[in-house]
């Protein structure tokens, strides 16, 4: 016992001065290196976890299911429409059906300035936006106010039964400033 104790103390004493004389830089640095690596791993886990959670948080704001009016709908037969502007589907689907002598097309009722719904003024034969005063002629082409281009037109198609199918998620743009006009593309109008 006593021998063991004395042995321990002597060994401790012999070690202690050595350690204090030279602070064993290699051993200390090695220990620190391990700690830093472990610390970095822990921080990487924490930031990775928070980062993934933040991405989940952002994705959360994009709903998968929408309870909005369907963008694809039937409006009946071409013969249901007389010449001029038809407002039947304005409240339900936000479109005007325009019948001209040789063609039929569907105007999506959204002002190209900032997206309000213009009003059809039969007495003045024009569409007028109540928000900032853009005016469009009976074909939906802008002629006054801040609107930059004519109102967009919806995709139209005859289904096998002869009814007209409209899709307001497919819009045809006429933008004179950008030099594009898709109003005469197939699907932008029906020959009647």
């Amino acid at each position, binding site marked *: 016992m006593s021998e063991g104790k004395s042995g321990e103390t002597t060994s401790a004493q012999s070690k202690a001065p050595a350690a204090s004389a030279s602070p064993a830089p290699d051993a200390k640095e090695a220990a620190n290196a391990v700690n830093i690596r472990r610390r970095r791993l822990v921080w990487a886990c924490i930031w990775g976890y928070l980062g993934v959670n933040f991405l989940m948080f*952002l994705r959360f*704001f*994009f*709903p998968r299911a*929408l*309870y*909005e009016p369907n963008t694809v709908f039937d409006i009946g037969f071409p013969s249901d429409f007389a010449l001029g502007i038809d407002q039947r589907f304005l409240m339900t689907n936000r479109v005007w059906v325009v019948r001209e002598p040789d063609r039929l097309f569907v105007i999506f009722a959204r002002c190209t300035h*900032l*997206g*309000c719904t213009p009003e059809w003024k039969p007495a003045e034969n024009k569409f007028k936006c*109540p*928000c900032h005063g853009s005016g469009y002629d009976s074909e939906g082409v802008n002629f006054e106010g801040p609107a930059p281009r004519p109102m967009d037109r919806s995709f139209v198609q005859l289904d096998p039964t002869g009814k007209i199918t409209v899709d307001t*998620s497919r819009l045809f743009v006429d933008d004179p400033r950008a030099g594009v006009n898709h109003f005469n593309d197939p699907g932008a109008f029906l020959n009647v």
Partner: protein
Amino acid sequence: MPEENGSGKEKTGVLEKAKDSAAALRETITEKAKQQAVELKEPEKTQLYRSIFRVKHDEEPRNRALSVLSNVFFHLHPAKVNRDATKYNFTWGMGGITFYLFVVLTFTGVLLMFYYHPTKVQAFRDILYLENDVPFGKLLRNMHRWAAHLMIIAVWLHMFRVFMTGSYKRPREFNWCVGVLLMVLTMLLSFTGYLLPDDQLGFWAVTVGTNMARATPLLGNEGPFGAQMGMTPYNDVRFALLGGSIVDANALLRAYIWHCIAIPLIAAIFMGVHFWRVRKDGGISGPAPVMLESEIKEERSPRPVVLRPSGMG
């Protein structure tokens, strides 16, 4: 049996002890009652009072400072403020008025929440109900509305004053940035509150406002590089704001939550930082401090040290 005897002895012992303690108790109760009667005359000397207020609020500089520093609400405020910097013709009091209006808006807003349902069927009906039937509902709604208008005005005037007095300069440049964020948050509060009545005015205003979000660079479906980023009306930043492609029930609910919970919380946090930084950046900026003749002390230091806020250099 010996056990019984033993317990009997103990019983008598217990009885005596009880009598003694009862007598002692009678004395201590009367003593305590007397003590409490004395304490009631000077409640600020009681242990209870001191546990709450901790510091004697005597009219001396040290205790005045301590009463600010040791109070959880006041500690954001500087313990001492330069007299010249608080003149209304210098500050216009606009920061304080803005904060006061925020408190008014929070209070009246919470009360409005008791009668308002953020749904398409009920929202506008609730506005009519508040306007016509709820006791003091019209007053409450108009307080909220006018305080909101005034807060926007006060925020802009505060910003104008800070700019004109050069108070945005070092060391206050960080606090200027916090202030700009707070102004943006105030604008967002105003914008989200616009939709909540669900009337024609608010509906079309938010339609217009969120259509502008279509033109966001990279994140909007009509903005620069939006198409290249794969943005459509169904996955862009406007879609995330509205919770859909049109201003509908989801948009109303989202505006409500942003307006009532998320933005006020964020703004309150930034307000805490803003006020604290005013103190840490050397108090309100102002003209160089002026001393009254009566305040000039005899040669405490060879030269009086004049702290000149660097903003007014």
